[in-house]
């Protein structure tokens, strides 16, 4: 089983989706059960994977099968493969995905309208997310990356809130724009790179590992790092990096291309919000760490200050927007923008600490934001109203709910003992050390970014005070009686999330031991090759 673990993870949901397609739509329970069984199977596969994973041993569970091989005569051979594997970057994210998708399925239990369609789309989305995190062939990655869009679009457009049409189309257009930017670079890259393992006819491969090796570039290609071709104001490679950067930054999302996120979050049904925040955003950060930085380390190094600056702007601006939000879900959405800024800052530091912090932040934010969106969903389910100012003194009426809110809010604002703290402290460490180790970030950026923590504390504490403390009273078109405390299903969803957040806040070691070797290697590689390629044009 071991050599096919990743394929099993990937194709089980697809097969289940195919099976569901041919079942009659009448019995809603069938589709829920199928999806839960798929999730449970994925957990089993993941456990086997985790047990057999050797930290620090690089890529593992690699599967490589030829997919497309076209012999184009003099031009060479076009080669794409089914190439998957996991390392210290993807393993935490794959684990997160399996865990969160399980949670999302449970949270979808209350979906009653067109259950068949919903769960089929959810299963397709499941496979696409796992695929994006494990693909090591650019074309395969792109397939999964785009394959997420259509199910997500329909999930928001069909099961979303009142302004779902606007939100879903905005989501689709923004993310498609991002993926087109990535597509442009993908085409330019695979034409420019040859497979070193073959001799004779030129083989243009989509293999991401080949692309990350500067010696594999064909010397006449525009993107050859040794040629350093100028295109207008910037070198060609800088342009390519910028396209990739903005392509992934839309997904991340980064200010100023973040505007689709609050709308999508506010309108999406709770489980979809959870997947969106916990997993889809991570693909932006993952893409930067897997594709943009290793393939264009020189351009990334040159623009490191810019990436860091955009990260800091996202942190501050996202935080300020969160503070100004009147809707609870919108507040959480903006806090996501703010937290994903740390990922940018960490990666841009070009240090092992910063990189590890960025990956840890992606993992931790996946847990925390899921919890936050589930909590917001709980309130919305009861009253259909998420306006912060309509609530006061909920702590007395909903004590268990408030306890979970406290955990989630404190985790999100970065209190020690919660997973967010570990991630952010590492990012700050990296950002402060960057300049000393020859990285591109100035200390001042790290200092400004710490302001983000203050803002985060401000909006969370303020919200706590407004909504949960003080005398109990509500406004709007609902009564206090509707505010019942958590039911068993909600409790069952929230408890594992809370426990995971606490566990990874108190014992970072298990996860760090996976991430750290990767982060060391990544930072050393991008810093080294970034500098050497820049210095010797």
């Amino acid at each position: 089983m071991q050599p096919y673990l990743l394929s099993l993870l990937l194709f089980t949901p697809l097969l289940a989706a195919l099976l569901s397609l041919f079942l009659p739509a009448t019995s809603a329970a069938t589709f829920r059960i199928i999806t839960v069984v798929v999730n449970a199977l994925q957990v089993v596969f993941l456990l086997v994977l985790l047990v057999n994973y050797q930290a620090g041993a690089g890529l593992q569970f690699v599967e490589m099968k030829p997919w497309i091989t076209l012999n184009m005569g003099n031009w060479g051979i076009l080669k794409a493969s089914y190439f998957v594997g996991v390392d210290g970057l993807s393993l935490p994210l794959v684990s997160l995905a399996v865990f969160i998708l399980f949670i999302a399925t449970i949270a979808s239990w209350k979906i009653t309208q067109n259950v068949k369609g919903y769960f089929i789309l959810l299963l397709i989305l499941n496979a696409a997310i796992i695929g994006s995190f494990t693909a090591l062939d650019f074309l395969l990655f792109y397939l999964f990356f785009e394959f997420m869009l259509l199910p997500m679009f329909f999930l928001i457009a069909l099961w979303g809130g009142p302004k779902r049409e606007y939100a879903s189309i905005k989501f689709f257009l923004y993310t498609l724009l991002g993926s087109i930017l990535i597509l442009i670079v993908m085409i330019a890259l695979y034409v420019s790179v040859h497979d070193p393992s073959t001799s004779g006819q030129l083989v243009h491969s989509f293999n991401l590992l080949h692309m990350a090796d500067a010696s594999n570039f064909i010397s006449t290609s525009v993107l050859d790092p040794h040629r350093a071709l100028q295109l207008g104001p910037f070198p060609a490679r800088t342009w390519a990096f910028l396209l990739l950067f903005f392509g992934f930054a839309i997904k991340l999302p980064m200010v100023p291309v973040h505007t689709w996120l609050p709308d999508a979050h506010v309108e999406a049904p709770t489980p979809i919000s959870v997947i969106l925040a916990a997993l889809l955003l991570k693909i932006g950060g993952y893409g930067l760490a897997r594709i943009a930085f290793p393939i264009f380390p020189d351009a990334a190094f040159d623009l490191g200050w810019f990436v860091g600056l955009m990260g800091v702007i996202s942190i501050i601006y996202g935080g300020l927007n969160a503070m100004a939000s009147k809707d609870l879900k919108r507040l959480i959405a903006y806090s996501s923008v703010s937290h994903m800024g740390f990922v940018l800052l960490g990666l841009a530091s070009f240090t092992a600490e910063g990189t590890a912090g960025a990956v840890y932040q992606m993992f931790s934010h996946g847990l925390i934001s899921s919890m936050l969106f589930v909590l917001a969903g709980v309130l919305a389910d009861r009253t259909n109203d998420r306006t912060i100012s309509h609530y006061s003194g909920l702590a007395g009426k909903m004590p268990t709910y408030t306890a979970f809110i406290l955990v989630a809010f404190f985790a999100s604002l970065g209190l020690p003992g919660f997973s967010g703290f570990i991630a952010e402290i590492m990012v700050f460490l990296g950002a402060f050390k960057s300049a000393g180790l020859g990285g591109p970030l100035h200390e001042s950026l790290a200092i400004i970014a710490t302001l983000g923590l203050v803002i985060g504390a401000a909006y969370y504490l303020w919200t706590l005070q407004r909504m949960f403390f003080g005398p109990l009273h509500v406004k709007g078109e609902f009564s206090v009686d509707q505010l019942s405390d958590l039911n068993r299903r909600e409790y069952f969803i929230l408890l594992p999330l809370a426990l995971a957040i606490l566990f990874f806040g108190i014992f970072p070691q298990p996860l760090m031991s996976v991430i750290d070797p990767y982060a060391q290697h990544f930072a050393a590689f991008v810093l080294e090759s970034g500098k050497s390629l820049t210095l010797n044009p």
Partner: protein
Amino acid sequence: MEDVAEQLSSIKASFILLGPELVLSTGIVVLVTLGLIKKIQRTTLTVMSALTFVLAIAVSFALIRAMTQESAALFGGMLRHDSFSSYLDLLIDISGLLTVAMTWRRQQEQRALSEYYALLLTITLGAHLLVMSVNLLMVFLSLEMVSLSSYALAGFAFSRKGTEGSLKYFLFGSVSSAAMLYGFSLLYGLTGTMDFASGEFTRHLISHPSPLFFIAAFLGLAGFLYKMAAAPLHPWAPDVYEAAPMPVIAFFAVVPKLAGLGVLTRFTLALYAYGQSSFDWQFVLSLVALLSLTVGNFSALWQKNAKRLMGYSSIAQSGFLLVGVAAFVPQGIHYMLFYASVYVVMNFLVFLYLQYFESLGFSTLESFAGSGKILVWPSVFLLVGFVALTGLPPTGGFTGKLFIFSSLWDAYQHSGKGVLLLLMIFGLLNTVVSLFYYLRIPFYAFVRSGEFNAKPNYLTFENLLGLILVLGVLYLFFNPGLLMGWINKINFVL
């Protein structure tokens, strides 16, 4: 006397290679004759025309298999038979067959059915000849053969709108034909030869770079661009598309387009003269592609009628096809043929279901509201078609675009021309624009709720054919190697 004998034997040899065209001509005669019989069954006519197309496909296929030499000049250099033309002919015949299938499934009875089928066959025959033409006169004759029949066919809805569309088509067509003829006569004067694929033509082109050459060739291009519905000679398309019967539009969106594309490829490659031409034809074609993409996509955004929308979509698709030619690299032509094949499949997929929905009373975009919840499978298949036209994975539309733009990037790497980079970036960004309108019908169908109510019957011919086309479009994504393997055997000789 020996000369005559030689000529006769050459003509005899030419006729064998002209098998598919002879089949088509026979089909035309048979259909027109059958039309004279008063009580002829409609089914007989349909079967006859389908049979003609099947036979033409079979003969084309056999000819490709039996091809011994790279290319053969027929009738003293009037036509050229090579694997390029055979492949395009095959695509054209398959499109013809699919059109017959669509016509057969039309709810409304088609008036003058035998003439209708005869015209379809005539256009197909003209398209065959156009793709093979290397002589300017022959180009003009076959282009007119396609055009004149198209004008008549465009009005076959026998409605006021149909007449209007047909007349617009005719007026536009005659102007661009006139421009083309003028250009051709200048070219003849400048080179002294009608055969644009000959060495003489190229020699004159290189040795006497006069601005008149540019004007003449540019005017000549007008006729092809018009046939392809490429900007700036596109304005007829939406009107004709809106007014003509659905199978006719599906046919127009493929057959004249591919025929125009085929001859345009030959003609521009001759003009390009292996990069030795003193005029930058790459620049011209890139601009035309860019303009078609932009005009088509942006105009489509505001359309409310499904057929008009497809008219603008067809203009934009011409732009994508032209990208493959504009690259002027050998694999660009191969990739263009791949995209053309995918285009045939996705085009008919979309039109098949648009016709199906039209028969249920859906014509404006808004009217599709709620149909996706009742007619699930047809709507899903239509969605796949639109996703393919947008160019998203996992459909062949994506693979085609990926290939075409790869060759463009290659061309850019070789020449370093900014316009190619511009075409690449704007061409791909156009996908985002196109998504917005391609997704509108599925959006109304699935997301909006409507009052439409019907008991769906999924076991229909449409759904069988639709399923085949859907599987085809998906297959071309997951395994493009098979088709590309065939296309790669095409030896493109000018």
